[in-house]
């Protein structure tokens, strides 16, 4: 073995460590630069700006005075905001779980090697492509006691049938959930179906030999395997929940009363219709803080902490 190798040129010929770092990572850094700028200017900038405005008394146009927490105390005394907050919780919980359940069921049933799979899949997916502005009207009609389902059933002779959720203060938020499910369940179905297709075929065989009923296989064996898909679906659905606006505007305009108000609509109305930028941004800030405090730990653990794979 050669132990007296020549150590003469002790300077590495390919440059120093620092040079190499720069050489290899500079292009990547440059490529990420636009995004970094956007994140800095648009995302972080707008967030800070929003937070700042919520401490002012801005109305139509922003002004940079300082009123402390006045807007926040107003906000938390505001019925509509409080209703909005509890509505979004109800809606979010029901919508996300509903989408997952319906999406999962649809995916499972479509996965039964059925005829016309493509047709069914498209039927379940198509609502996703439609703007809510008008589909909301269709739902509104269908759920209207005088026009839609209730009338239909009563006309068939069931005079006492009542389905008036849309016009019932306590139930109206659930009609929003129904329409939301109609819109979003298909996408969830597609994502989960993709997951189902990826499940190891041997697992099915093993379960069959073990004599496990199909539904048990789905619930006990397959579902746990779909976790990544479920996570993706939940992320997509959650962004939808936070931004929920169109659907409410199209179906109930927040009514009856303020029964179906939601935070995004609160923000929107105050920013653009009521010219109360300060209150609107205060509401937005609260949303922001809520979202961040719920999601930041997950984002951190899942995406920030793990380093890139090398080089």
């Amino acid at each position, binding site marked *: 073995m050669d132990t007296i190798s020549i150590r003469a040129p002790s300077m590495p010929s390919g440059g120093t460590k620092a040079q190499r770092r720069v050489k290899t990572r500079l292009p990547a850094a440059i490529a990420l630069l636009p995004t970094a700028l956007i994140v800095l200017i648009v995302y972080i900038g707008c967030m800070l700006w929003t937070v700042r405005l919520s401490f002012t008394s801005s109305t139509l146009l922003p002004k940079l005075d300082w009123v402390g927490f006045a807007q926040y105390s107003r906000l938390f005394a505001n019925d509509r905001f409080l209703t909005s907050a509890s509505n979004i919780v109800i809606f979010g919980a029901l919508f996300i779980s509903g989408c997952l359940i319906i999406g999962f069921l649809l995916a499972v049933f479509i996965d039964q090697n059925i005829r016309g799979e493509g047709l069914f899949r498209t039927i379940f997916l198509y609502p996703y492509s439609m703007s809510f502005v008008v589909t909301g009207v269709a739902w509104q009609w269908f759920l209207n006691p005088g026009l839609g389902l209730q009338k239909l059933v009563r006309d068939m002779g069931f005079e006492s049938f009542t389905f008036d959720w849309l016009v019932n203060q306590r139930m109206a938020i659930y009609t929003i959930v129904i329409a939301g499910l109609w819109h979003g369940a298909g996408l969830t179905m597609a994502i989960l179906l993709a997951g189902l297709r990826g499940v190891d075929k*041997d*697992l099915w*065989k*093993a379960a069959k*030999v073990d*004599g496990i009923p199909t539904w*048990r296989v789905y619930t006990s*064996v397959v579902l746990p395997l779909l976790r990544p898909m479920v996570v993706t679906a939940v992320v997509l659905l959650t962004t939808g929940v936070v931004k929920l606006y169109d659907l409410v505007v199209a179906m109930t305009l927040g009514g009856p009363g303020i029964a179906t108000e939601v935070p995004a609509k609160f923000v929107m109305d105050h920013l653009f219709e009521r010219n109360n930028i300060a209150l609107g941004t205060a509401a937005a800030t609260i949303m922001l803080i809520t979202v961040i405090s719920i999601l930041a730990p997950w984002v951190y653990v899942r995406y920030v902490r793990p380093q890139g794979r090398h080089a």
Partner: protein
Amino acid sequence: MSTVSVRDVTVAFEAVQVFDGLSLDIQEGEFIVLLGPSGCGKSTLLNAIAGLLDVAEGQIWINGKNVTWEEPKDRGIAMVFQSYALYPRMNVRENMSFGLKMAKTPRPEIEKRVAKAAELLQITPLLDRRPDQLSGGQRQRVAIGRALVRDAAVFLFDEPLSNLDAKLRNELRVEIKRLHARLGKTTMVYVTHDQIEAMTLADRIVVMKEQKIQQIGTPDEIYHRPANLFVAGFVGSPQMNFVKGRIENTGEGLSFLSGNRRLSLSGYPFVTAPSSGQDVVLGVRPEHLEISSTGIWPGFTVDIVEPMGADTVIWCSDALGSAQVRTSGSRRPTPGESLTLHVDPSQVSLFAADSGERL
């Protein structure tokens, strides 16, 4: 009486027809290995026995009962898969007891069986772990355990070791063999494309190719008396050496002739009598070629020497072709050296050049 009997079975995947009336009888307590290259239909046959796919024609009998249309769980079988197919998110105990629970087996009985299987497989300390907390070999054992608790008469293994590394494969192979011995009357059908596994495990090997059975026989029969060229070439590593030539009837009986090489076949146990002048292929296993200065085939040059620890494989060639010779670990010719080889006629195989069948 045979435990498993496959009778004239045909399987059809939509348009593609696999097996054209395939039959196979397996005796009680036998260890049968299905061996063959990828795509030859090993898994398909196993799945047909297990009832995991519908046969188009023919019947399948298990333990004297026609189970052609039975559900898999009612066939008295247990199965182990290449990918283990353990239920994720359930711990080992749950994995093993899930099937029994579904069959409404009483709790104490379940516990007894799981404990016994775990004992046997030495996975008792692992019972509360999840599959993802186990090593490959441990997972494999759990998969076997799950099959064991079913108390089945027939065990089906679909390439259960091929996901493991060489060392572990060796260890588990022996364990499976031990298990079979310990379980006594249990029939095992084992799919593999690894011939070492086939040779060491099987009571009988079924060699398949292109969805047809090529030969059924004990490992010795398969190794030493391959039924055709395919079996001869597929089984054994390094591969059997093949030499094309002709049968000649000289004065003192039949002999094989290839170029200037000649081999008297007086000691060869013919299955079919060859005709003189027939084109044949002579097969000699590398370990049956001896390096000997008194050999009958001189003039080989050493190309490569592969020391494999216990033995050494020597690749050598002459003008007519190349040959591999296997010698003990200590014999080390250097590349370029000249060799003379000796062949024992009682150890060779002869095949018809046209049909490939053994003569």
